């Protein structure tokens, strides 16, 4: 197989236009606090953090094939990390968000050493147990206020304007950051390894790829991103309680958003998070019915349309805003493998 007979395409013209639009949208979002009232950024923080945590779950479930139901553990660690660095050590709250994220990442390493011994559904419940362990440890420490929780005073004492704007920009940074990190990661060698692991783990292992290390990176990055989002959520809420911060509902949100939006795509979690956000805002007065509705929708999608909303769009029209697939483009006269080529063959470079 000589190399000049085919080339690997990572993006098309349409993709580049889409990326430019996404970048423009990020810039517009950056200016939001300057031309809206105070409640808009506050509401948008919820949406942006939802996008971040869903994106981080998608990196695990959609790309590394690791179905975790314990990501609420890292969200809670991020929240309590914020309290620890800001209130106990006196670090500036905004800087504490970064430190809290790193703390979550650091704790995820030994945790991975344990839960990676398990597979499939047993891995899933194993991660759940670790999140429960984090929750119980925090709830049993007197300094954190135990089960009744604690107010993050250094954040509460900040000026409202500074806190709201800072929180909003941090949320935007984390939402855009998680999308960019996942995008760049998937276009790298590690990303290729991850998607290959998801599709056939033993085949990848036989090619000499270090499966454990690839999964570990996905797990750590996911913990860091989820921890950062957790810290930001509690910059907004001010009071942190173990049962809420380490609640399984967070992971339910992530999974439902990713599954409905489209697992294994970057666009999917964004769409799913948006859908979740809209349902939550409109059905707020009907208790937890929005969660039941989304759950039923997620189960139905998994059974009938496993590709989710964006996956279905992608299958039908080959549309991708964040291209992470590699398209093999054959030169003229090369036909032996043309039957297996993706539909994108010949799309403009």
């Amino acid at each position, binding site marked *: 197989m000589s190399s000049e007979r085919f080339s690997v395409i990572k993006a098309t013209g349409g993709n580049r236009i889409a990326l430019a639009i996404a970048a423009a949208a990020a810039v517009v979002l950056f200016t939001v606090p300057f031309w809206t009232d105070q409640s808009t950024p506050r509401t948008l923080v919820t949406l942006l953090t939802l996008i971040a945590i869903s994106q981080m779950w998608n990196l695990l*479930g959609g790309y590394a*094939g690791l*179905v975790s*139901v314990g990501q609420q553990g890292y969200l809670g660690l991020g929240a309590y990390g914020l309290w620890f660095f800001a209130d106990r050590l006196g670090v500036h709250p905004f800087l504490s968000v970064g430190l809290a994220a790193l703390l979550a990442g650091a704790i995820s390493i030994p945790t991975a*050493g*344990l*839960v990676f*011994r*398990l597979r*499939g*559904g*047993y891995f*899933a*419940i*194993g991660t*759940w*147990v*670790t999140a*429960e*362990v984090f929750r*119980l*440890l925090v*709830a*049993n420490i007197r300094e954190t206020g135990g089960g009744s929780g604690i107010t993050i005073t250094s954040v509460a004492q900040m000026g409202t304007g500074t806190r709201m704007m800072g929180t909003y920009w941090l949320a935007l940074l984390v939402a855009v950051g998680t999308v960019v990190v996942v995008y760049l990661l998937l276009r790298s060698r590690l990303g290729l390894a991850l998607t290959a692991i998801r599709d056939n783990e033993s085949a990848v292992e036989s090619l000499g790829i270090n499966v454990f290390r690839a999964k570990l990176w996905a797990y750590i990055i996911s913990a860091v991103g989820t921890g950062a989002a957790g810290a930001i959520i509690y910059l907004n809420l001010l009071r942190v309680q173990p049962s809420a911060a380490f609640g*399984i*509902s967070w992971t*339910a949100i992530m*999974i*439902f958003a990713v*599954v409905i939006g489209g697992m294994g795509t970057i666009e999917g979690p964004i769409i799913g998070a948006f859908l979740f956000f809209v349902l939550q805002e409109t059905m707020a007065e009907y*208790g*937890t*019915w929005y*969660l*039941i509705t989304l*759950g*039923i929708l*997620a*189960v139905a999608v*998994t*059974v009938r349309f*496993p590709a989710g909303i964006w996956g279905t769009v992608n299958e039908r029209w080959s549309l991708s805003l964040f291209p992470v697939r590699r398209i093999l483009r054959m030169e003229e006269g090369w036909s032996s493998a043309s039957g297996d080529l993706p539909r994108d063959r010949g799309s403009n470079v």
Partner: protein
Amino acid sequence: MTIVNVILQGVLLGGLYALYAVGLSLIFGVMRIVNLAHGDLSILAAFISLLIVDTIGLNPLLALVAVIPLMFVVGYVLQLGILNFTLSSDEMRPILVTFGMSIILQNALLETFTADSQGLDAGPVENASVTLTSNLAIGWFPLIIMVAAVVVITGLNFFLTRTQLGRAFRATSDDQEAARLMGVNNRRVYGLAMGISLGIVALAGVVMGIRTTFDPLTGPLRLIFAYETVIIGGLGSSWGTLIGGVILGVAQALGAYASPGWGILAGHLVFLAVLAFRPQGLLPKTAEI
């Protein structure tokens, strides 16, 4: 003597955890599904029992005659109606679907029965005890649960090894394609396995509802106990679940004895220790059910 008493209570608690675990273990053995809604389905059974108790005033132990078959049907329908469609090469789909069912069930129960703690009253048997020495007593009820667990495990083993349907279960577990070629109806076998699993979990849910309180959100913790029992005992070993249950029960009892908040945590830590030092569990037998 108190410490002996604490350990004894823990051992008997193990019987209850084994009841929870065998159902989880059975369906994993037959169809390689880990049912994340296992705990919530046990809570559903407890609430169904509560409804029967409240409307016709039956003792919850007698109500089991209705609750167990009902949950068997729920399992069969759930398997044939939903879960069978997720059994492809992709092992992720059943996990996602059962997780979704878990969240749906929790919140639907919450909307129906509110977040109040409930309990099932089985009458005097609940608190009766045998006095062994002056300060050592065993409750009749925990003892009955332990005996029930031994009976269920023995019965399940007999069913799997000695009956024709049990052979079909094991054949499907070993090689579903080959079993199909031999005329086994896989989908029906899966439905029956899920039915039996939920029948057992109905028993577990009701007796646990008699022993302690429950509310719509206690399901996940029950799932975790069942799961820790399975892993500590060794995947796929039915007598292992009894040992796993006893170890988990004793760890929790000792933890709670040391400090009230540490009972469940102590159980988790023993589970993590097993995972770190003996990930295959104590009595591994993964090849069979």
